């Protein structure tokens, strides 16, 4: 009767969730945005994404195998997300060697130097992106025009993003309404027909991914809603004060990296706070910093910087904003 049986402490039952399911769920959620980027920017967006993913996987594998000397975990899907997110954050006609360099910085410096999955304080894709933006500002801000030359490997026709046009125009004392006349309709921009990084253009496609991730319970709604909400609130106040000097909230939400940042980058589990209270402050911080950088800063776009800055506050937020304990006894004042 007594044969060898396993003995371990409880619980003896495990849920169906796994790191792979979480990671590939996010990858699936990014597919609509990727398809839209290929639709608008053509074959160059496809190459960009493929190169970014392949190099991210390669660097993670090589570092784990030859430097860290651990069993490579590239199949868990997290490097694919980093590669895809990096691609989403780059202009589609970026030279291939820069894509690979960005991928290296993202994986090697942004992620593996801290110990790999789960250990990095900053969003790796954004580390790669900001490194490229600061080091190669010209290449990183030559935005191909959507729907032109879709079959070309390198898009010759480039233009400014709506955010850059607004920033530039206001600096030259143009009125906002005259700048807006040169931009596509809001409905067009919502679908993705505007200049920008490959994956950030279509708010609609990103929202499809958001709904999917909420449905699969991969993320909660708090960070995206509070980040976009605080962006809308701050830009709305400025716009109400001076409608000719500041762009309206809808413009801020559908242009640039707002949607991409809110749905896919601020929600990165590894680099966002653990408690709901912390997540709300984190998200509001990103929203406010984004608008401050966009309106008052030197760069036309501030989502990447805002997220990286708030990433740095995560350990602090985790230390001071605990979940409410059951049966908590209020501390004597």
């Amino acid at each position: 009767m007594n044969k060898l049986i396993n003995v371990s402490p409880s619980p003896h039952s495990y849920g169906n969730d796994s790191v792979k399911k979480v990671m590939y769920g996010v990858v699936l959620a990014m597919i609509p945005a990727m398809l839209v980027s290929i639709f608008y920017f053509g074959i160059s967006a496809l190459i960009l994404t493929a190169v970014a993913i392949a190099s991210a996987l390669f660097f993670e594998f090589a570092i784990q195998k030859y430097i860290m000397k651990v069993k490579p975990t590239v199949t868990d899907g997290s490097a694919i997300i980093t590669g895809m997110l990096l691609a989403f954050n780059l202009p589609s006609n970026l030279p291939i060697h820069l894509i690979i360099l960005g991928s290296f910085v993202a994986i090697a410096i942004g992620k593996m130097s801290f110990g790999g999955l789960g250990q990095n304080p900053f969003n790796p894709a954004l580390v790669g992106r900001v490194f490229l933006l600061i080091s190669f500002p010209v290449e990183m801000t030559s935005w191909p025009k959507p729907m032109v030359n879709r079959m070309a490997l390198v898009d010759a026709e480039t233009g400014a993003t709506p955010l850059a046009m607004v920033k530039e125009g206001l600096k030259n004392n143009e009125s906002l309404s005259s700048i807006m006349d040169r931009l596509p309709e809001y409905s067009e921009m919502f679908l993705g027909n505007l200049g920008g990084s490959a994956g950030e253009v279509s708010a609609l496609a990103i929202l499809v991914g958001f709904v999917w991730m909420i449905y699969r319970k991969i993320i909660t709604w708090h960070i995206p809603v509070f980040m976009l909400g605080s962006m809308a609130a701050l830009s709305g106040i400025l716009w109400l004060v001076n409608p000719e000097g500041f762009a309206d909230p809808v413009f801020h939400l559908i242009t640039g990296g707002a949607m991409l940042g809110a749905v896919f980058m601020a929600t990165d589990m590894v680099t966002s706070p653990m408690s709901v209270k912390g997540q709300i402050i984190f998200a509001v911080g990103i929203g406010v910093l984004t608008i401050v950088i966009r309106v008052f800063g030197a760069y036309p776009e501030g989502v990447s910087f805002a997220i990286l800055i708030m990433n740095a506050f995560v350990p602090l937020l985790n230390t001071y904003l605990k979940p409410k304990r059951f049966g908590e006894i209020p501390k004597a004042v």
Partner: protein
Amino acid sequence: MLKTFPKGGVHPPENKMASGAAIEVLPLPKTVTIPIAQHIGAPSTPAVKRGDLVKVGQILAQSSGFVSANIHSSVSGKVTKVDDVVDSSGYKRKSVIIDVDGDEWMESIDRSTDLIRNISMTSSQIVQRVMECGIVGMGGATFPSHVKLSIPKGKTADVLILNGVECEPYLTSDHRVMLERAEEMLIGVQILMKALEVKKALIGIENNKPDAIEKLTKLTADKPGIEVYALKVQYPQGGEKQLIKALINREVPSGGLPIDVGTVVHNVGTALAVYEAVQKNKPLLERVVTVTGRSVSKPANYLVRLGTPVSQLIEASGGLPEDTGKVINGGPMMGKALNNLDVAVTKGTSGIVMIPQDLSQRREIKNCIRCARCTVVCPMGLEPYLLMTLSEKAMWENVETNDVMDCIECGSCSYTCPSDRPLLDYIRLGKGTVSKLIRSRKQ
């Protein structure tokens, strides 16, 4: 809207395949092994020696303090040994081993099946009887029941809560008790109400037992003060603190007891045992045990004499399935894995669950991805990921200030972790170490 606790929780597959199996009386075993420590608190003092002849219901070991319980013989026969034997915890404990001979009961025990509705004892007599009969919590925690019925000075209870939740997957023993022994159990509830001098009793049952809810609702229609509530199927609904919160919206303070918020919680199985003790003078010597598992040929609920070897229950249900990888004493969320199938059924054995090989092994541990699911599911509002890290690094002061002692060890964190991290293992390590530190500070 079904009542439930507001924070955290998970919903593991229910797997209640034995819920339709009526309680069967398991035949008497040839020998029984009765540990003298089957409860939380001080082990009892043996009152018999080798060679003694005992009857069913005779005292084997005397309670050795207030938080302790008498142990009675579940069979008649001859004591062959009083020795250290491995019990379900895996440790050697002093046990009384009896060779069964016939089935001769103490004359003082009323063995008739007549329902005795009239409660003639006073409150203090009831508490005394519960103590004499060695009644402990039957839900699995085995806390001596008379302690819970003796309300400390300065505290009052205004409501009694009956735990019929049975939120552990697989287990159905409480379910069957509520269905088949409903009338006796409800008299037990009235006895407990009288002992505590409360006017109100609430019975909480998870909504996956509609037949039990219906039956008890019908039977309590003419019993003022007793109400039945259906609760959402959400683990750990049957956790004492969670159940109190769900039913009467009071929060037991950290480090406190239910009595601090004016209530006492008893399991429905305990209510039945209290009925038998008070009305029939029958000590706690048998209990209902669920024997089940995915590959078990006959999932069943047995009425088992305490001390019966677990192997005999498994045999009655068609033997150990070929693919068994783990045998659990209790449910899969909080039960203990057995390393030996000869151990005895004790007062706290609510079920024996056989888990197939493919589900019995721990999965490979991956890096924490800081998804915060453990903090979301923790019903106590703790941060399991943090407690694990701090315990790994042996930062015990931080483990303590992060409220490790509030953990109820429900296992929701380990259950839900996508990285399969052994969160609860490390939290237990932290709890054990911190409680030692607290004790050494007091000295």
